[in-house]
């Protein structure tokens, strides 16, 4: 006979239960805190080249283990899209309207995760997560392509001409964008691999998943 626990009441195989929603939000809060800390740290400690090109890659590397544990724990369709939605809500509350592009990448990432038990496979997770983080990196580039004049007006309030030229060099040069995306993809895959190792070494042993 199937054992019923309080948290399983009302939840179906593919439907998200309250526990799944809560797990997703709590892990995403931690991911947001790490992303904000890395973003600030990279800007302060590293040269602009490292901060612009490797910043999203470092974030992906550090957040990868958290994402893998979260995906393994929830293991239902829509985890990646939920991550994208929560990230967008958080960034919108911070006034970063350009992060709306991330929703589109969340949908593409979710489409890449179609299939049974894809969230339990670290390689499949790495594919979806890489698309999500590549989208995150491109969220700074896309507004410059579509609304350049408005972005110059906004940035000119805080950036010096020199800082703005540096930023535009990294966000408008195709080779630099390619390097940034490649570093992000590498960070994402490595983060997911480390996450899988953590999952097997600690979380599964402790029977938390």
């Amino acid at each position, binding site marked *: 006979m199937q054992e019923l626990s*309080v948290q399983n*009441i009302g939840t179906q195989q593919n439907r998200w239960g*309250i526990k799944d929603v*809560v797990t997703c939000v709590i892990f995403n809060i931690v991911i947001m805190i790490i992303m904000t800390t890395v973003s600030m740290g990279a*800007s302060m400690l590293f040269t602009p080249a490292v901060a612009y090109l490797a910043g999203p890659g470092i974030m992906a590397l550090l957040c990868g283990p958290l994402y893998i*544990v979260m995906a393994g724990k929830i293991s239902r369709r829509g985890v990646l899209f939920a991550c994208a939605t*929560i990230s967008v809500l958080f960034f919108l509350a911070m*006034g970063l*309207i350009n992060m709306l592009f991330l929703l589109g990448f969340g949908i593409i990432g979710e489409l890449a995760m179609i299939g049974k038990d894809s969230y339990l496979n670290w390689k499949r997770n790495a594919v979806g997560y890489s698309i999500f983080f590549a989208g995150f990196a491109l969220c700074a580039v896309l507004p410059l392509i579509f609304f350049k004049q408005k972005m110059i007006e906004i940035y000119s309030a805080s950036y010096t001409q020199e800082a703005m030229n540096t930023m535009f060099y990294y966000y408008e040069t195709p080779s630099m964008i390619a390097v940034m995306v490649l570093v992000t993809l590498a960070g994402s895959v490595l983060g997911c691999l480390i996450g899988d190792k953590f999952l097997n070494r600690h*979380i599964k042993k402790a029977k938390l998943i």
Partner: protein
Amino acid sequence: MNLRIKKVRLDPRTHLLILLLMSILALIAASHAQSIAIMLLGMLYLVVLGLFKKAFQYGLLFVCFKAAVIALGGTALGTFVIIFYTFSTMIPLMMIASALMASSPSVMMCAFERMRLPKNLIITICILIRFFPVIVQEMVSIRNGMRARGIFQHWYSVLRQPALAYECFLMPLVVRCLKLSSELAASAVLRGIECTVTRSSAYPVGFRTVDGLAILMFFILATGIYVVM
């Protein structure tokens, strides 16, 4: 004489709408005068709601960030200027968000349910708003626990073995997050979060004249800041 100030209580949906308007205003504001006016508007909003302490704290923080921007303006520390400037533009948004956070979770859920938002989205918004300080507190506790046990006692100890330091910090945090989500979900289910009937609240929930006035006044002042300055 006992002077009592009556606090204005607004619907969470009003806070959410004003947060959206404030985000747009903060995005389109370009000059320093506009950013100062937006901060004053945020302070006025908190004062009207009776949140004087928060208005003062955020105002002081804004002044500190602006002072840092001016002080570091001509130096080689341009990156810090960008960071402080970004934080100073976020302060008006934090002000409105703090007004929303001051609302009871029950009122928030009841109000958002009336907007016919999906239940999972409502839960997400409520946890996002309420749990940021809790998670930060958990992180501080883990750090203190590590220090008490003599693990990575100094900040530079982390630089010697960064991978091990990250693992030592991450694993307790992941376990705590998993436990926290289980406990919170069980508590929410036992309080009837999965119940399909319309939610009620002990507090009055609904749009009143004061909400309409607040939105109208905010819209007029925001338009004034954008057009005149």
